[in-house]
């Protein structure tokens, strides 16, 4: 704070004895209202060069914020997400994560720091006591408030110091661009795409086999033992002669709707006849996609037959038609009707009867 020290001759001679700047308590009147201490000027109040320097500093911070926002967008566009770099206290970290975090932090911090520096060095800091008064405001007070607002605006130097005003507006306008860049990934509305899955290709005459996600092999009912959990995807169909493969261009989009989980429950443990009829000899096949916000849900407890979602703890009772027994999910998990083909492999002959996954604007059921 040494730059705040200033020689005696530059300090104003006398402080104006304005209202509210009271007197210290003295021996004969120990309870005198001390009021506010005498106002002391800041260096920027009395030295125009210091004020200019502070103005440049504030603008500099706002400009730095703008540069950081540009840096954020540039990093988002240019850095390979797979790149790892070594940064001392953190170890091997993703270059993209680090760059996005640092630039956004600098962009926001510089706006805050610039605003604080501006308020502390350039805005008026004359102490002004406000007397208590009735809550209702008459016309005179309102006029006074408007006048004060104008005075405040004038004192902040918003009109006079155009460089600060323009750079502040610039930095505030550019920060939301970071959000817009990220929101771009949310993409267009789903429309009809969520109403049907790849299982809709299955018909009684052309069934689709259920293929084990781990081994890429079709499964028989006896492969699914009681207490096990198996994940499945669509096998060969007219549309996909090789079945759904990781290498398919639309794999992520397809598996987000087609993924299945297969369990087997002892017949005496099944509580819902309709659900049991959709299965095959106690093997039940449910959508793996949570009906709340679409997380892959497969925390299956083999003893209670509860399946829960790791995101918001929606809990489904798979022995009772995947009824929701806890949590925010609005629908039971859709169940896929399964049977076996002539070779004994598990197949689907129709699509889910309700859309899989979370509610969406155009959802029909």
């Amino acid at each position, binding site marked *: 704070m040494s730059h705040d020290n200033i020689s005696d001759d530059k300090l104003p001679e006398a402080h104006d004895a304005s209202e509210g700047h009271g007197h210290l308590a003295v021996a004969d009147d120990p309870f005198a209202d001390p009021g506010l201490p005498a106002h002391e*000027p800041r*260096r920027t109040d009395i030295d125009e060069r210091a004020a200019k320097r502070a103005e440049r500093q504030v603008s500099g911070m706002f400009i730095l914020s703008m540069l950081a926002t540009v840096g954020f967008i540039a990093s988002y566009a240019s850095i390979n997400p797979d790149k790892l770099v070594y940064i001392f206290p953190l170890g091997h*970290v993703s270059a993209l994560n680090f760059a996005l975090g640092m630039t956004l932090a600098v962009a926001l911090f510089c706006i805050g720091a610039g605003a604080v520096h501006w308020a502390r060095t350039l805005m008026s800091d004359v102490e002004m006591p406000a007397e208590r008064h009735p809550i209702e405001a008459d016309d005179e007070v309102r006029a006074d408030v408007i006048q004060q607002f104008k005075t405040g605006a004038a004192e902040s130097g918003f009109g006079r110091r155009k460089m600060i005003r323009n750079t502040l507006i610039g930095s505030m306008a550019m920060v939301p661009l970071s959000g817009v860049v990220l929101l771009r990934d949310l993409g267009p509305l789903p429309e009809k795409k969520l109403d049907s899955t790849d299982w809709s290709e299955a018909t009684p005459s052309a069934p689709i086999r259920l293929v084990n996600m781990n081994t890429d092999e079709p499964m028989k009912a*006896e492969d699914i033992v009681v*207490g*096990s959990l198996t994940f499945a995807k669509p096998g060969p169909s007219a549309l996909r002669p090789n079945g759904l493969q990781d290498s398919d261009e639309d794999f992520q989009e397809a598996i987000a709707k087609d993924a299945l989980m297969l369990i087997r429950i002892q017949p005496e443990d099944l509580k819902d006849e309709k659900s049991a009829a959709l299965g095959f000899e106690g093997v039940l096949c449910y959508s793996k996609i949570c009906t709340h916000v679409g997380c892959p849900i497969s925390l299956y407890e083999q003893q209670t037959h509860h399946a829960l979602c790791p995101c918001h703890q929606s809990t489904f009772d798979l022995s009772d038609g995947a009824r929701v027994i806890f949590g925010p999910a609005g629908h039971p998990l859709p169940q896929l009707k399964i049977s076996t083909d002539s070779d004994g492999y598990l197949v689907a002959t129709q699509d889910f009867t309700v859309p899989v996954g979370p509610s969406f604007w155009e959802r029909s059921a």
Partner: protein
Amino acid sequence: MKKLSARRRHPLAALVVLLFALAITGGLYAAFAPAEKAQADSSAQSLAIEQGKRLFAVGCSSCHGLNGEGTPSGPSLVGVGSAAVDFQVGTGRMPAQQPGAQIPKKKNIYSQSDIDQMAAFVASLGPGPVTPTSEQYTSTETDAIAKGGDLFRTNCAQCHNFAGAGGALTQGKYAPSLDGVSAKHIFEAMQTGPQSMPQFPESTMPEKQKQEIVAFVRYQADEAPNPGGLTLGSLGPVTEGLFGWIFGLGVLIAVAIWVAAHTTKAKKS
């Protein structure tokens, strides 16, 4: 005695009396409690089942029945196989310290030969998964970790967390952390499906894939890089939120105090 009675109203007197009482109770319990550790010498392999039955009678039969047939407090062990015994006893889950939503992992009190004998006895009750050998759970493939990561994310990550840090289930049950679990026990858990965990039998997950998962879990626990910087236990929003509230907000408050405490008034030089 006078010294003692003079201090009986000392604020810490109650604490001292309590500590004495706890020490005496604990000492008496240690002296008179039945020893849980059964002594058995590991003799010839042909006697393993008989020895195992004796160990079983002491350590396991109160819940699982004298012949492993099951009781209301413990399930039947017919057909669980030797792998289940090796996992449950080897990780200290059995004998259970108390009934509850989930039997936690604790210090194992049996030697490996004791466990093998009990496993031999339980395996004799009915066919089930056999304790794996190290060739069964050690992969020699060079791409095992990558393939195992894929399989882990499909089959295990939902409960055990993307980094194997574990997670919560319903009503007090939980998926334990996989950090520090031996390759054999990971393999056995997949084979047998202990407690709430589903099993992943040979028919839907071949041995080779289990090896790959084991390789990935060991890699994840021992040497995986960390793209996000601080892991905070890899637990996700819980520790991240705590860190944000305490350190993030703490720093903001400290800065606000620092800003307000420093005057910008011009001083006389």
